[in-house]
């Protein structure tokens, strides 16, 4: 099993954290993992993204040409990564910030009102958690909710750990959203 996941969004949307969470959770399950941020522009103002590879085998390169999963938290990210998703791959996208639905029909596309859900839970910064929650449901063999819970404690600095329960709550909302979508399909 190898999943090549790109998580992309604005700077403040916590895409790096989301990637780390996945990695630590998968690592604790004994899987091989790699995580690399895009540092492709020693410059400002663009999108932020990270590439996460989770695999039962050694990982050759952390760089992902054609992702199996893309999580696009904003419009520019969608524009950038949509064309790269592999045939039959998965796209999770933030409908709160992306007005027009993606144009490819050769992949599994899951819209989430991620920012809206986050805001509804009293923060604007947890769209990433919604998406991770959804991913957990959509790729059930990747990592469990339990391991993500443990990973949250490991990855989040002690100063911010107080938000972990909120994060988990938002995560499960994402999970349930995905559940519903899957059920409806």
């Amino acid at each position, binding site marked *: 099993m190898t999943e090549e996941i790109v998580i992309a969004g604005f700077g403040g949307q916590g895409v790096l954290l989301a990637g780390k969470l996945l990695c630590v959770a998968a690592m*604790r399950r004994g*899987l091989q993992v790699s995580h*690399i941020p895009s540092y*492709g522009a*020693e410059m400002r103002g663009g999108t932020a993204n990270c590439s996460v590879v989770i695999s039962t085998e050694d990982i050759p*390169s952390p760089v992902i040409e054609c992702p199996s999963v893309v999580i696009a938290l904003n419009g520019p990210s969608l524009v950038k990564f949509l064309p790269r998703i592999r045939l039959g791959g998965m796209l999770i996208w933030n409908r709160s910030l992306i007005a027009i639905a993606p144009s490819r029909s050769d992949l599994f596309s899951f819209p989430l009102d991620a920012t809206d859900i986050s805001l509804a839970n009293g923060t604007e910064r947890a769209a990433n958690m919604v998406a991770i929650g959804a991913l957990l449901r959509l790729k059930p063999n990747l990592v469990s909710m339990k391991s993500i819970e443990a990973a949250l404690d490991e990855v989040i600095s002690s100063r911010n750990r107080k938000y972990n329960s909120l994060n988990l709550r938002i995560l499960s909302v994402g999970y349930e959203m995905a559940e519903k979508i899957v059920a409806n399909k």
Partner: protein
Amino acid sequence: MLGKVLMKGNEALAEAALIAGCRHYFAYPITPQNEIPVYMARRMAELGGTFIQAESELAAISMVMGASAGGVRTMTSSSSPGMALKQEGISYLAGAELPCVLVNVMRGGPGLGGIAGSQGDYFQATRGGGNGDYRTIVLAPGNAQELADFTVDAFDLADEYRIPVLILVDGYLGQMSEPLTLPKPNGKKFEKSWAVRGSEGKSKNIIASLRLVPDSALEVHNLHLQDKYEKITEEVRHVDEYRCEDAEWLIVAYGAAARVARKAVDSLRTGGTRVGLFRPLSLWPFPDRELNEFAKEVEKVLTVEMSLGQLIEDVKLSVNGEAEVDFYGRAGGAVPTLDDIIGRIYSYEHQDHTHVQAS
């Protein structure tokens, strides 16, 4: 995986330097190694060590010179253009036989180039971009675990041979996070009676690369260095031979490029192609005899680099005509692809079969 931590390559390296007892780190910011100074800024404050953000790379390497001369373990890190600026200082350190650890997290060049990972400084690292006949040991880790482990080794090698040791990494290895087990302090101690700590109670020490009098002094010094380099060449030869035993084709690669090559070997082996990966872990000294042995047995050697023909010179020098040497390289931040490597090796087999049929 279970007892491991997930760390960015740059941070794994930094933490390993602390484990090795380095408390004097000097550097100037540059992408893609910025995590090292940022990490050190925090940790040195905790440990009571010294981190100075130098005014330039020239100043940083000179601070390393001062600290090393004082007898402490010291390190600097940079990336390609910054490393170019350190060349004079490295030549001085080598000439004055001062131990230290240097880190180059390579990015694409030439010039300002770009900041994606690259292996374009292989020549600079292995041949020395500074002036004169000198060498630095060059280690080439290939994952976060090796980044940490080789860093501890680097400090030991530096002290043992009184030589700068360069850890050559590309930006991808520096930037990516992977699981690793942090090394334990090994407790090795090195006597540094040559350090300049004041002459109280002993005859005075002088540390310099200058040799003016008599006329032959500089040649004598160079021959002494050369002896040391030969000793190192005998004693420090690190290589990872992966499925090379019965190989018909051999791939040579290091660092991030070698990770892809290794995968290619696995894939090809599954398909029945007898291919191996020769991964030098020390780039200087280069494990040339070891490679030459394999070269005698194989039909062709493929060099895979993230540069446009640098590693291949050491490969050719090692192979010395015993086998054909082919080249596949990417530049400016691109990573070799699995398909390209597999395709290339496959094409040999194909050619070969054609050849066999024709004969």
